[in-house]
């Protein structure tokens, strides 16, 4: 479990230090305060040796919403990762955790000096157009991975098969990763956990099925006691998000889950059941959760639930962007509860 993180020159964050991370971390702050960037940095800190794979996946998700930018186009695809687009300076993420030595991840574009020469002969075919280098240093060990853009295309480093982090963000569709994970849960007979969580939203839910009615695409259906099978996507955003949360938690052990805009699509009446479930599930499965929110109700519901559960694992992290620094204030459960009691606004 991560206990602290320092981020330098990553996306909109010039410098940020957070000390005292908890098992469940709710990140709050104004627009453009760096909430999502911090969550990405935390994901990289959890799995720094797979940094390039994570960055590639995150950038694909980000640019997919706005353009068809190609991974080969360094300036369009990769530059936004770096603060003030300074890829040569690069970014650094330093983290501490209970389980590991302190680790530092440094990612930067390597300067290209021109074609390499072998015995005085130009060998332009091996010259990369650009190279992105990720270095992880911890203790006496240092590992490096690179992604090159060459005449034959990009060469991504080999990704680890077991990626210990999951990212959930508001989306109109159910991702193939979630369908794969749920399918696996079904095969293992562990899908009841998903049904249990969906019952918090609708007590008529008796099961969840994967069906392919047209023979082409597999879709998720919810079995309701009275109505029978109903497509999950017809049951509203809240039910879909609960499904994603449930699958992520059920399919993950000892990992971290990163939820962007956790309150999105959820009525305030289902916030407390969700936090109760997260409190229990994270304790049972040793999962560390990071979530962003703009919702005061969401923060208050979390604080009430963790108090009722006698769970000290909640931290609320408030971000405020200052001139050359993003200031992070970490509130524990009791201080969040005191803020609610006294009407102190902690969201920024």
């Amino acid at each position, binding site marked *: 479990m991560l206990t602290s993180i320092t981020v330098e020159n990553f996306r909109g964050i010039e410098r940020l230090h957070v000390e005292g991370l908890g098992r469940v971390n709710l990140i709050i702050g104004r627009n453009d305060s760096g909430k999502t960037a911090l969550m990405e940095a935390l994901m990289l800190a959890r799995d720094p040796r797979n940094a390039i794979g994570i960055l590639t996946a995150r950038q694909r998700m980000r640019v997919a919403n706005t353009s068809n930018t190609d991974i080969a186009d360094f300036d369009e695809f990769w530059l936004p990762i770096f603060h003030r687009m300074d890829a040569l300076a690069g970014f650094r993420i330093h983290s501490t955790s209970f389980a590991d030595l302190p680790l530092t991840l440094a990612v930067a574009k390597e300067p290209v000096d021109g074609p390499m020469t072998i015995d005085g002969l130009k060998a332009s075919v091996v010259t990369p157009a650009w190279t992105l280098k990720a270095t992880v240093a911890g203790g006496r060990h240092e590992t490096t991975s690179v992604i090159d853009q060459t005449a034959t295309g990009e060469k991504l480093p080999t990704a680890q098969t077991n990626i210990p982090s999951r990212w959930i963000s508001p989306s109109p569709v159910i991702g193939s990763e979630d369908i794969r994970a749920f399918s696996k849960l079904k095969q293992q007979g562990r899908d009841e956990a998903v049904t249990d969580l969906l019952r918090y939203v609708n007590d008529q839910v008796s099961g969840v099925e994967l069906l392919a009615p047209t023979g082409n695409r597999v879709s998720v259906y919810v079995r309701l006691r009275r109505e029978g099978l109903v497509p999950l996507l017809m049951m509203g955003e809240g039910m879909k998000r609960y499904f994603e949360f449930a699958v992520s938690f059920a399919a993950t052990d000892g990992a971290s889950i990163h939820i962007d805009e956790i309150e999105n699509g959820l009525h305030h009446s289902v916030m407390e059941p969700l936090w109760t479930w997260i409190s229990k599930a994270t304790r049972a499965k040793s999962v560390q959760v990071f979530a962003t929110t703009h919702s005061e109700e969401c923060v208050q519901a979390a604080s009430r639930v963790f108090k009722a559960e006698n769970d000290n694992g909640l931290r609320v992290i408030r971000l*405020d962007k200052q001139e050359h620094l993003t200031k992070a*204030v970490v*509130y524990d459960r*009791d201080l969040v509860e*005191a*803020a*609610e009691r*006294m009407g*102190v606004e902690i969201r920024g």
Partner: protein
Amino acid sequence: MSRPPNEKKKQPPFPTEPFGLLLVEGGDEEKLCKAIAGPAVWGSLVCWNARGRPNITELARLAAQDPSFRYARSVGVLLDMEDDPVGTQGLIQEALAALNVTAPFVHGAFVPGAAPRVGVFVSPDGQQTGSIEGLCKQAVRDPALTSCVNALVTCAGQPHTTQARGMKGWLDAYLAMQPEPLRLHQALNGSKVFDLNHVAFDPLRAFLQAL
């Protein structure tokens, strides 16, 4: 079960320019400060109300953690001594620690050199047991009614067992005998019941002006 959104009145946000911060234990203390400070001084202050004496330390901690706390030029804490000088002293030390102040506390004075400057005012005067009711009692406008209430308290056999309770009981009786019975926060809305320029309020007024 889940509750609907919290509709409680919010504490005012901190500005991003220099300001004086006043932390008070309750609504009556806030009303009194507003009444005696005058509009010019009050307008330059941000007042946070702890909504209960036991909350003052957490309120100070929340204030100190606010990113705009760095714009506070000074912080004043107003507490009542009540009947518990030892407990009040402990509460003051906790509040000062929450504000990152380690210097010893002197009633009504601001710790020099600290940023922001921090001061604590313990009503009525930093020495005696009691509360803001003790200051208000001295500033009531009607001497005839004062005599009547004194007589009532004597006749009732001085029922309150402590000085602070006695002050509160006396003032409640006085306010109950107004043409329209009032609570203290209502009586502090105008200058009919209390002489807001009375010398009894001068030390607290000076404390507020120094913020």
